[in-house]
């Protein structure tokens, strides 16, 4: 909670984390990214990472993620954030590099970088915002676009003969030995948002404890490109997206499970 907020109001129950910059975001109405940005901000604040976190902006709707935090930041080329983060962590292990990567960035153009960062067990934190579409470039086919789903580059809907099948990144990376923590969450409901916040927090603590690669895939709403009303987008996600991308934890090393257990106690 920022000091300014505290001074202005007596009984504050909800405020912007102090580590976040006091500004509006550039996200569209009903977009899930703002929630994800905030959850990351809450984790950074709770873990007191003001002087250690490095926010790596990726290409896509999260491109200016570094604008929203009062921590050091840099921009990565499209898909390359895991490589950039790898170098930052290996050069200065005390820093806490993280990136919020979209589905085009992580699961299409950056597949080599994410797979190898995960396989090497790089001690970095990746938040994978999956909204099944290319938001910033105007709703083209994404590697996670659902079967039959409209996109501006599959005007008749995604079909397998033309575009193959959506990639389940969390399940895929969980087959590797390098990752310490991999989970898929969603930001479609208050309960899921709370769970997502916990997972993101755990992904940072996995890095802080030096346990290995951590990634949280967050299913996120994109009503503009899904062509649904913002208010209907959460329900659309439940109906269409979660069946394809089931929520849950896919890789939890025992040491990470121990961190979680310590939480509950």
């Amino acid at each position, binding site marked *: 909670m920022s000091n300014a907020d505290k001074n202005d109001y007596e009984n504050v129950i909800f405020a912007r984390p102090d580590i976040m910059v006091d500004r509006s975001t550039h996200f569209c109405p009903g977009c899930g990214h703002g929630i994800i940005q905030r959850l990351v901000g809450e984790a950074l604040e709770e873990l007191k990472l003001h002087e250690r976190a490095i926010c790596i*902006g990726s290409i896509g709707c999260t491109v200016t993620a570094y604008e929203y935090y009062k921590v*050091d*930041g*840099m921009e*990565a080329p499209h898909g390359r954030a895991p*490589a950039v983060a790898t*170098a930052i962590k290996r050069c200065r292990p005390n*820093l806490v590099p993280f990136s919020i990567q979209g589905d085009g960035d992580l699961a299409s153009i950056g597949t080599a*970088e994410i797979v190898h960062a995960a396989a090497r067990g790089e001690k970095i934190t990746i938040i994978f915002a999956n909204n099944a579409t290319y938001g910033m470039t105007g709703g083209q086919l994404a590697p996670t676009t659902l079967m039959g789903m409209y996109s501006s580059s599959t005007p008749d809907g995604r079909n397998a003969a033309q575009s193959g099948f959506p990639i389940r990144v969390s399940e895929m990376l969980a087959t590797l030995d390098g990752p310490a923590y991999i989970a898929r969450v969603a930001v479609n409901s208050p309960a899921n948002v709370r769970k997502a916040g916990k997972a993101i927090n755990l992904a940072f603590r996995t890095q802080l404890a030096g346990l290995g690669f951590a990634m949280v895939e967050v299913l996120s709403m994109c009503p503009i490109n899904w062509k649904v009303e913002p208010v209907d987008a959460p329900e659309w996600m439940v109906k269409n997206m979660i069946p394809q991308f089931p929520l849950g934890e896919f890789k939890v090393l025992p040491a990470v499970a121990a961190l979680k257990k310590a939480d509950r106690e």
Partner: protein
Amino acid sequence: MPERTLMGGNIAVGEGALLAGCQAYFGYPITPQNDLLEFMARRMPELGRVFLQTESELAAINMVYGAAAVGFRTMTSTSSPGFSLQQEGISYMAGAEMPAVIVNIMRAGPGLGNIGGAQGDYMQCTRGGGHGDYYLITLTPSTVQEMMDLTMLAFELADKYRNPVLVIADGFLGQAMEPVTIREKVKKLPEKKWAITGAKGRPKNLINSFEMNPLDHPRRIKLLLEKFERMRVHEVRYEGLNLDDADIVLVAYGSAARSAITAMNIARKNKLRVGLVRPITVFPFPYQPLADLAERGCKFVVAEMSGGQMIEDVRIAVGNQNEIKLVNSYGGVPLEADPIFETIDLLM
């Protein structure tokens, strides 16, 4: 007395990087520079520095970008096809003003080409190479000693200008062994207040090339262009040999320059007045010295291991009045002294 030893060109690059205080090396195997990567794989960890063999040249250059951003002296080395892959990252680094050294031990292209040495990446190196408005100081060693010395200089210039610097050599020079005098270790690395080291006791630092507001971007580019102009003014380097009375001037760099020296010596023995301009930087290119020689009425022979790329810079310098001849090899074949001498002979 400084140590003198017989050393390979690629290894001299590695030794030079260590002496210059390179703190992090990232690279992907590609012939003909694998001995450099292997040297760094052994030496960097021994010295407590960062080494990583990456999944691709793309990852390598982006790791260099990350390492530069946290204030490390850092480098990668590759050969032509890998260098093409790295253009994206280099463009970002130029845009974000990140210092680093990129070593390109060139082989023959286009495409997979051939593992033989070549100088076919000249245009790519001297014209930016990636997208957008940028240039890179490009150093061209022609001896194993210079492989060491210019690598060390590259780190200095990268930090001086906050810009990536290229060291380019053909694969032959990378493989060649020559006597080398070991230089003194750089003792103090420059302070980098702009680096992202954690926002402790200062406002946050941000490293990017992006401006959300389109009106802000030209201002940023203008600053970059002014910087490239300063390089053009201050960083031109070349070696001139036998120019005082020269009627014919050879222009060559790298191992082609070595063959040109032999051709020049043969010519001199035959009482032909031949000199040599050997660019040590090809960006910035030594236009002025060549223009002065053109003014004097010299003819020019450009010797290069490519289809004829540097000759375009010589044309810019010399204009249309003076005769310029190209003698070249391509496809991974050395350029030997004989054809260079024959070309001189033709011009006389």
